[in-house]
C-alpha cells in the first residue's frame, strides 16, 4: 500500500537561506504523526508546504505526493497550480491553524462559513448542506443550534471546535493541526485532543500534529519527528523516542518538561538559541548547543535508522547511556 502522504527532500528557502532543509516524511492512512521542536525550526513551514500555502517570498522544492483513497490517482502537490490546489485543499487535506480560534470570520454566522467550505468543493442541495452542518457540529461535540452564532458569541473552546468542524467539512483524509491547543487551558486542551483522537478512530483520518508540547504529542501520536534548524533530527514510534531518545536535542526537550511526581524544580534551559537560517553551523546543526559535541560533529550526521523505524541524526547513536555533563548546564535552577 502506498503512503497517504509522501514528502521527499522538501527544501524551502528564503533569500537563499534554508528554512526547511531536506525533510522526508511519510504518513500512512489513519496514522497520527507529531512534529516537534522549538519555534523557528521549520515545523509550520513544512505543514504549509504540504498545503502549498507558503508566502511568495519562500522558494519550495522537493516531491510531495498525496494519495487519498477518494482520489483516482496520486496527486503531485509540487506540480499543482494554485487553481489545481483549490481542488486539493479542504477536499483531501485540511489545516487547523495556529490560533485558529481567531481565524473565523467575525461577520459571518458559523454555519455560513461551514456551508461555504462545502459548496466550494461539492455540488450539493441546500437541504444536504444543512444536514452536513448539523452532523459536523454534532461530531465535534457542539449543539447544532450554535451554528446560528457569530464567532464572538462562542467561547475559545467552542471556536476551536468550529475550526475542527470546518477542517472536516469535505471529509479529507489528512488533517494538519498546527499547535491546535496552545491557546487553550488544560481542560479544553484535553477536550480538543480527545476529539481529534476520536475522529481519527471514527473517520480513519490521518493527522499531522504540530506542537512544541511533548506531552500533547505523546498522548495523541503514533509516531513523532523532532525538527531542529530545518531538519528532522530524530524520528520514530512515540514509545521508542520517549523511552529511549537517541539525539541530544530530543533528550533535552524531554528533560525540559516537568514530570509530576518526579523531582520538582525548573529544568535548565538549553543554552543559546536555534541558529539563524542565514548562519547554520557547519556539521551537526545542534553542535554549538550540544554538551556532547566532539570533533566528529564537524561533519554533517545523516539521519540513519537504528531499529524498527527509529532514526536519528547523531554520530554517537545509539546512546545506551548518557554521560553526565558539566553541572552548570544541567543542574536545576531551584537546587
Amino acid at each position, binding site marked *: 500500500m502506498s503512503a497517504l502522504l509522501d514528502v521527499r527532500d522538501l527544501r524551502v528557502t528564503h533569500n537563499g537561506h534554508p528554512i526547511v532543509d531536506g525533510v522526508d516524511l511519510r504518513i500512512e492512512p489513519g496514522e497520527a504523526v507529531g512534529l516537534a521542536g*522549538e519555534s523557528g525550526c521549520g515545523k509550520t513551514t513544512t505543514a504549509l508546504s504540504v498545503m502549498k500555502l507558503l508566502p511568495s517570498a519562500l522558494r519550495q522544492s522537493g516531491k510531495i505526493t498525496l494519495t487519498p483513497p477518494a482520489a483516482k490517482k496520486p496527486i503531485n502537490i509540487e506540480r499543482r497550480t494554485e487553481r489545481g490546489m483549490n481542488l486539493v485543499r479542504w477536499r483531501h487535506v485540511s489545516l487547523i491553524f495556529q490560533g485558529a480560534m481567531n481565524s473565523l470570520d467575525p461577520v459571518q454566522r458559523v454555519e455560513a462559513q461551514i456551508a461555504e467550505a462545502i459548496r466550494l468543493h461539492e455540488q450539493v442541495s441546500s437541504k444536504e448542506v444543512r444536514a452536513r452542518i448539523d452532523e459536523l457540529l454534532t461530531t465535534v461535540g457542539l449543539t447544532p443550534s450554535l451554528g446560528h452564532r457569530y464567532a464572538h458569541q462562542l467561547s475559545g473552546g467552542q471556536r476551536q471546535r468550529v475550526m475542527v468542524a470546518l477542517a472536516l467539512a469535505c471529509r479529507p483524509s489528512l488533517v494538519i493541526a498546527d499547535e491546535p491547543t496552545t491557546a487553550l487551558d488544560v*481542560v479544553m486542551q484535553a477536550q480538543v485532543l480527545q476529539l481529534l483522537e476520536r475522529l481519527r478512530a471514527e473517520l480513519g483520518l490521518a493527522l499531522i500534529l504540530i506542537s512544541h*508540547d511533548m506531552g500533547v504529542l505523546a498522548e495523541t501520536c503514533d509516531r513523532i519527528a523532532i525538527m531542529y534548524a530545518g531538519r528532522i533530527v530524530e524520528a520514530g514510534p512515540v514509545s521508542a523516542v520517549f523511552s529511549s531518545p537517541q539525539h541530544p536535542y530530543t533528550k533535552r526537550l524531554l528533560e525540559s518538561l516537568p514530570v509530576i511526581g518526579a523531582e520538582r524544580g525548573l529544568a535548565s534551559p538549553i543554552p543559546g538559541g536555534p541558529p539563524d537560517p542565514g548562519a547554520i553551523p557547519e556539521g551537526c546543526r545542534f553542535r554549538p548547543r550540544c554538551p556532547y559535541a566532539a570533533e566528529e560533529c564537524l561533519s554533517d550526521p545523516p539521519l540513519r535508522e537504528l531499529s524498527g523505524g527509529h532514526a536519528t541524526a547523531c554520530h554517537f547513536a545509539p546512546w545506551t547511556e548518557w554521560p553526565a555533563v558539566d553541572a552548570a548546564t544541567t543542574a536545576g535552577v531551584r537546587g
Partner: protein
Amino acid sequence: MSDVLMDVSDLAVHFKARKGTARALDGVSLEWRRGEILGVVGESGCGKSTLARAMMGLVKPAAGEVSLNGETVAGRGRVRELRRRVQMIFQDPYQTLNPRQRVRAIVAEPLVVQGVPKDEHEARVRRAMEDVGLTAEHFLTRYPHQLSGGQRQRVAIAAALVLEPDGLVCDEPVSMLDASVRSQILAVLVELQRRRNLALVFITHDLSLAWSLCDRIAVMYLGRVVEQGSAVDVIERPRHPYTQALAAAIPVPSANGDAKRELLSGELPDATAIPTGCRFHPRCPRRFEPCDRVDPGLMAAGAPDQLAACLLYDPTQGRAEVAGAADG
C-alpha cells in the same frame, strides 16, 4: 512583622454585564506569605486575572478587603503604598511597554511616579537591569521594538523591581513565550525570589508549571478558591473533585502516555449565572444530595495546610473522605 505579606479576605468583584451582574470574584480568601511563590491556577474565565488586579488595587472590590502587612488597603494613599510594596507583570510583553519610550525611561518610570529623588534613579535602574540579566550599556538606550519577546518581558520585570518591592504579581508571565525563552524568564523569577526574598504570585493555567515552581497553590473555580495547599499536595494528591479533574487533564510526556482519562465535561458556566449550592456541582462526577443546595466553604482536607471547598470533607455529611482526609 508577621509572615503574611498580603491577606485577601472574602473579596468580591462584580462587573456589570448585559445579562446582569458578573461575579468575577465571589468571596476569595487567600494568604500570600512573605518570600513564597504562590500559584493561582484554574480554567480561563475563573477569575485569576481579576484576582491579580484586585490585589493591586486596580479594580474596586464590591465586598471584602485586601490588607498589606496587616493594614487594610483603602483610599488613595494606601493604594499608593501598596504599589510601592507590590508590583505586577503582565502576560503580553508586546503591549505593556510604551513603544515611544527608551528602556531607561520605562524602567525609571515607577521611581518618578513614587517621587524617588532623581539622583538615585540611574543606580537603581542599573541594579534592576542587572537583576534581570540585561546589560545596562547595551539595552538602556533601546526602544521596545528593538527587543525580542524575552527581552521585553525582562524589561517589564526590571521596571517592576526598581522600587524594590516585597511582592510581585505575575499574570501568565511566560504563556506567550517560546519554550527556551520561557525557561530563561522563569529562572530569572526564581532567582529573584531566592536572592531578594521576593514573594511571587504566579498566575497560570499550566498546572505542571505551577507544580514545579510554586510553594503553595490556590485553585480557582468560578470566582472562588476551591482548593489550596502545598504545591505537591494539591497537584499530586488533589482533594477537590475539580482539582482532580484538572490534574487528570495534564498531558503526560511518557512512552505509554495513552492512559484513558476521565475528562471534565461541559464548560465553565457564565459568571452571571453561578449555580446554586456548590458552584461546581453541575459538572462534578462525585456530587451527592445536598451539593445543589449547600455552598461549601474551605475545610480541612488531606494534608495539614490543605483545604478544599467540598462537602465530601464536611464531617457533618458523613462521607468516607473525611476519615480518608485525616490520615491522607
